[in-house]
């Protein structure tokens, strides 16, 4: 009896702790979204936890001061989709080559990829910038998209995933039917690997969407600014006292990700659990 009582008490305390932690986790995000709907005057009057009705007013101020938020949104979207497609396709291709074929040096290549996942980007970014500027690619999205052909983290994930779904009989059957090796990858393997590819795609998309440092170093013309770079300009003097529109600008960058998470959290959580998904 006593034993049961202490367990119940302990459980109640745990729930209390979890609830406080949840409040700490969500309060900043909730305040961001609520304040995006409130006018500057309302925000100055005090803290509120219920949304107001000034979204469109805030939006007018936000885009009315030289900050092209819709363009930044489209830039970020384009870049995220392009990077995602490139990195998922080529990472699966690389992973497939490692899982299905046996060639000398395979193990070394795999270990090499494991090391690459860990490599900090400081070691390459300055050299990368100088080299891109010599090629005239500094203010171009190519310099952001092409490197994702070699995304070590995605290859690592892809290999783990393919190992669990590849059916060698199916590949042999396709070979007997006269399919080419690359044709087998496209027509047999990709459809089977779709769930894994989807998980990889979510991670690649979010990583690109949130990436600030690399575009910040490489991109110089305002027309090509991505959302995180616009967030930085949002801090400037033009918006100094327009709190409502600042919060709205931040909300625009964050809400798409929250929606993706709400829809696909299962994929994301299992992807994290499955191992180091870095990019």
């Amino acid at each position, binding site marked *: 009896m006593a034993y049961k009582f202490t367990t119940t008490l302990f459980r109640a305390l745990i729930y209390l702790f979890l609830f406080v932690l949840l409040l700490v986790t969500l309060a900043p995000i909730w305040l961001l979204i609520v304040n995006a709907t409130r006018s500057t005057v309302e925000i100055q009057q005090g803290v509120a936890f219920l949304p107001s009705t000034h979204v469109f007013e805030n939006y007018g101020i936000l885009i009315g001061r030289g900050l092209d938020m819709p363009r930044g949104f489209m830039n970020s979207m384009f870049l995220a989709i392009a990077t995602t497609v490139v990195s998922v396709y080529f990472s699966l291709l690389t992973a497939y080559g490692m899982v299905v074929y046996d060639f000398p040096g395979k193990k070394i290549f795999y270990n090499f990829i494991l090391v690459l996942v860990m490599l900090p980007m400081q070691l390459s970014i300055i050299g990368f910038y100088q080299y891109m500027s010599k090629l005239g690619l500094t203010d171009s999205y190519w310099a952001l998209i092409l490197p994702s052909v*070699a995304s070590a983290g995605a290859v690592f994930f892809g290999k783990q995933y393919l190992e669990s779904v590849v059916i060698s009989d199916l590949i042999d059957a396709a070979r007997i039917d006269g399919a080419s*090796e690359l044709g087998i990858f496209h027509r047999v393997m990709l459809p089977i690997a779709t769930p894994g590819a989807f998980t990889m795609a979510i991670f690649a998309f979010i990583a690109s969407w949130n990436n600030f440092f690399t575009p910040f170093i490489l991109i110089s013309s305002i027309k090509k600014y991505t959302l995180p770079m616009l967030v930085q300009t949002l801090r400037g003097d033009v918006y100094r006292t327009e709190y409502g529109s600042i919060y709205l600008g931040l909300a625009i960058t964050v809400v798409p990700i929250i929606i993706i998470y709400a829809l696909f959290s299962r994929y994301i959580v299992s992807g994290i659990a499955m191992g180091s998904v870095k990019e």
Partner: protein
Amino acid sequence: MQTLAKFRRNYFGVLFLVPFILAFLLFGLFPVYNTIALSFTDTTLMTSNANFIGLKNFQRLFADGVFINAIKNTWLLWILNFIPQIGIAMLLSVWFTNARLRIKAVGVWRALFFLPNLLMPAAVASLFFSLFSYFGPMNQFLVRNGFLPEAMQFLQSKEIARGLVIFIQWWMWFGNTIIILMAGMTSVPLTLYEAAMVDGASATQMFRHITLPLLKPILIYIFVTSLVGGMQMFDIPYLLTDGRGAPASSILTNNMLMYLKFSSSQGHIGAASSVGVMIFLMTSVCSLGIFYFLRDKDSKISHQMKF
């Protein structure tokens, strides 16, 4: 005949790796080589002639206190967020996986705790800048409820600025650590716990002698990835204040120092490269150190346990 075809086919696999290898050589390896080469020169973005100056860039880094201060800051900000991060994540993972406690809706709690990890760091830093600004909600709340006599400039205090960076990092990463720890804990065979219970082991004993040893590879993984990420910290401290680590360089990190040298009016990319190389050396030595010191010294025991 058949073996020859098989042999040929296996070499065909190498072709699948060609795009990766090419992209890696062009966009991964060559830039690394280039950065290392630049770190021995006085290259700037403004002039075309560059001279080999040996280790001068590195000597200059240690000549004043700026670089050492940046390293100290980076370590401080990382360690002080990592300890509560792993602590709280461990506590929650143990509770969530405990069969006796039977916490409800574990998946939902976990998913919600993880949410901040996915938000754009640049936006998060700007959000906290707004929340803690002079006219921001934090001041309003504290003054109205009598916790503070008058509004204060949070971001002009060294301790509060550092505390905020640490809090944000913790806030963004503890959910991630929970997911990884739980994946490790649920892979421990239940029979081990059953056997221990039969032997009359307490919950603490089971945690110390079963969970922790078997969790070691996962702990090393968390430790190293967090360290590598922490040493690269940029977005949050950069956007929380003026981008130069204000107040008084208290949140100036390694990566910010590299960027400051890169974006200086002359564009000293030689000097910036030397910062990058130093961070890399420091990170590698520490990561290898973690692997070395935490490696399985008592592998016999865990071998038996894995069985």
